[in-house]
């Protein structure tokens, strides 16, 4: 008998809002998080827009002296983790800290700090490089900073599988609870990739939207808009949650992952692999296609990948396609944070009984049709959400969340 894994809290730092409530309000309203790139002078660069986190005050979550030693990805991770724990109403104590763990997914981790310090190094030599570089630029950083901030000592890992990272992190966190090595796991994804080099590189790979928009499935889609943020959920063993009277609107029902071929640029999604991941997740969740109330799609406004996903959804659900929406229309492509933000959106949909819209959808593409695409947000009971987090470089992952009984 598998130990049931409930979701008792969520923490969000996103381009459309900080905190569960603000994020939910933005989803309801269909707010766009895409705007001018302000993080650095982008005038000479190929790309002028991004989905930036706005109004984020690191000092609200972290001592400013500590914050200087971290990359923005660590700021987002600590903030989202604090928000998640507070949302769960969970206090860390000596008695429970060893049973509370942390698994994070990230694709590009401390790239901003790394790029900035490399520039310092080139200009002024090693002696001017920040002494905090070694703790800020590698993928391990966020679990270190979060665990110290929260005082948690339980099971942990960092998984990096491009845009599937957050889903793989959540799946691994679930395993820790099911195995009995943890009672509570904070899990999801974090990303702060808005660096000049990353944008230039993605642009050279023709991945970014030249039209400066995020319009999943739309005929005018021409690439993604890069975004940033952190989405973390608190996964909790049912017995533990009940014992402390925690509120849980949702449950993690299933996880599926598959690996397959990828093209030479690494940014294409393989149809069969994605379909396999969907099938594996539904099977793991014991969820039939007819049970699904919402598909939280991967679609990030990419020409080919959106098309493949539309076809996949059509094939999986046939004529009885559940509502489909892509929050990447609002938050852009947040890579490793994607699945975490999607999870927050899935939880919103379940809790509020509301389907968030796919915004910017103006012109259907006959070759990329999703007949049940949600273009206007609307109330509807949501008991099962399937979320697609199709990574690059071969790994595709899917999660299924359900309403907690």
């Amino acid at each position: 008998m598998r130990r049931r894994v409930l979701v008792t809290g969520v923490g969000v730092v996103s381009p459309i809002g900080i905190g569960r409530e603000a994020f939910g309000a933005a989803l309801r309203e269909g707010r766009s998080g895409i705007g001018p790139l302000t993080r650095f002078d982008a005038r000479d660069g190929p790309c002028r827009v991004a989905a930036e986190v706005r109004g984020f005050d690191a000092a609200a979550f972290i001592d400013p002296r500590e914050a200087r030693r971290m990359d923005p990805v660590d700021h987002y991770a600590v903030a989202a983790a604090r928000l998640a724990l507070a949302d769960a109403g969970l206090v860390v104590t000596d008695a429970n800290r060893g049973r509370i763990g942390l698994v994070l997914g990230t694709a590009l981790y401390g790239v901003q700090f790394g790029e900035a310090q490399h520039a310092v190094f080139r200009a002024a030599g090693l002696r001017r490089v920040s002494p905090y570089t070694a703790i800020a630029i590698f993928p391990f950083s966020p679990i270190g900073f979060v665990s110290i901030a929260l005082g948690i000592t339980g099971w942990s890992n960092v998984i990096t599988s491009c845009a599937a990272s957050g889903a793989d992190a959540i799946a691994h966190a679930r395993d820790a609870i099911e195995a009995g090595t943890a009672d509570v796991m904070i899990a999801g994804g974090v990303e702060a990739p808005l660096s000049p080099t990353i944008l230039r590189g993605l642009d050279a790979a023709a991945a970014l939207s030249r039209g400066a928009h995020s319009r999943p499935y739309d005929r005018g889609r021409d690439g993604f808009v890069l975004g940033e943020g952190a989405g973390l959920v608190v996964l909790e063993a049912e017995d533990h949650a009940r014992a402390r009277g925690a509120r849980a609107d949702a449950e993690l029902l299933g996880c599926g992952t598959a690996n397959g071929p990828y093209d030479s640029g690494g940014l294409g999604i393989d149809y069969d692999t994605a379909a396999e991941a969907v099938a594996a997740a539904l099977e793991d969740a014991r969820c039939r296609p007819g049970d699904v109330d919402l598909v939280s799609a991967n679609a990030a406004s990419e020409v080919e990948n959106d098309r493949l996903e539309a076809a996949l959804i059509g094939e999986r659900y046939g004529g009885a396609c559940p509502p489909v929406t892509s929050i990447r229309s609002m938050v852009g492509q947040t890579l490793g944070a994607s699945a975490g933000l999607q999870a927050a959106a899935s939880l919103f949909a379940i809790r509020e009984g509301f389907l968030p819209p796919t915004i910017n959808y103006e012109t259907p593409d006959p070759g990329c049709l999703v007949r049940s695409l949600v273009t206007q947000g609307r109330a509807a009971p949501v008991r099962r959400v399937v979320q697609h987090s199709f990574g690059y470089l071969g790994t595709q992952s899917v999660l299924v969340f359900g309403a907690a009984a």
Partner: protein
Amino acid sequence: MTTRRIVVTGVGSVASCGVGREALRAALRGGRSFVRPLTRFDASSYPSRIAAEVDGFDPASFMDPDDAERIDRSAQFAVAAAVEAVRDSGLVLPGADPRRAGVSIGIAAGCMTSCEDHLFRQDRGEPDLATGGFYTRIAASSASAVVARHLGLRGRTHTLSTGCTTGTDSVGYAFQQIRAGRADVMIAGGTDAPIAPLAYGCFAIIRAMSTRNEDPESASRPFDRDRDGFVLGEGAGVVVLESLDHALRRGAPVYMEVAGYGTTLNAHHMTAPPPDGREMARAIAMALDDARVNPAGIEYVSAHGSSTPLNDAAETTALKRAFGDHARRLWVSSIKSVIGHTFGAAGGHQAAAAALAFRDGLVPPTVNLRDPDPACDLDCVPGAPRPRRLGAMLQNACGFCGKNAAIVYRRFDAA
């Protein structure tokens, strides 16, 4: 329901001691270190100028040169070690069902060699990586992805990246996937190519690395009174993990059984371990518990033994805490004394070395241990390897961010 058992059936390695498993085997009994003056970039102004570099590595001997061109050095190492490990195992991959074989090769530094190269070129106005294969070269998941692609595997392919515990976590993760029935075969371990100006330099400036530049061969000296920091290395250590049933059915040679995995966080400090070793001891206890092995059943510990003043003493304390009186009977050695600290690959190299220790009945020494620190007063197998028919051992790791990880290995005897 019987729990699945997992064994190691193949070993591959690329390290400063040479390319290949035999080079590692010879090095672990050879009694000397492979740390040398750093040559991969101009480190003449650095406080530390030594490293455990891989020399004479030709990716074209392992893969198509055009494919090799599109990936980072760390991914090239991973392919080489993975190919060797698979060949060693006798497995014909992808096998009957490619979805039952996956990859878990971790990396700690990320693709720093390529990233830094890219940034330097950009700065000089030269053609940079963005002109072809940008993402495949810089993504930390590229090593696992490329190995899966090269071998035609479609099973779960994930990359863990947890600093110095990466390799240990990656092997532990792979072990868990097979045990859960999600795979029959996992190519597991770690890789890293962090000997690049800033990647190496960021450790130099915080004095984490040895500055014994005038005597490189004796710089990596875990548990020794005169240790003064780790020496960064590069390479990949890969093992083939296989479900026991799968291995027995095909009559595979088994090196050892992987029996348990545990991990904890210190929640103390980003670089310094807490002196009481409490959470490291708990990770060890977790691994022992997972393996259903008694502390007294462990004979040998492949230590983290990074050769930093703080780590080696704290690790000794933690081992005493985890093993009590039995700690005095343990043999404890660090292969970092031979091949340096290979960062993301360290746990993979430890796994490879452990497999060889079981196979050869020979426990590797801690080299350069001439004057043991009184704070490191366990039996650290100084200088020379020791014969022992191992029953059970522990692989231990810890690192920046305060993570601790441990794996228990057990002898497997075919009935």
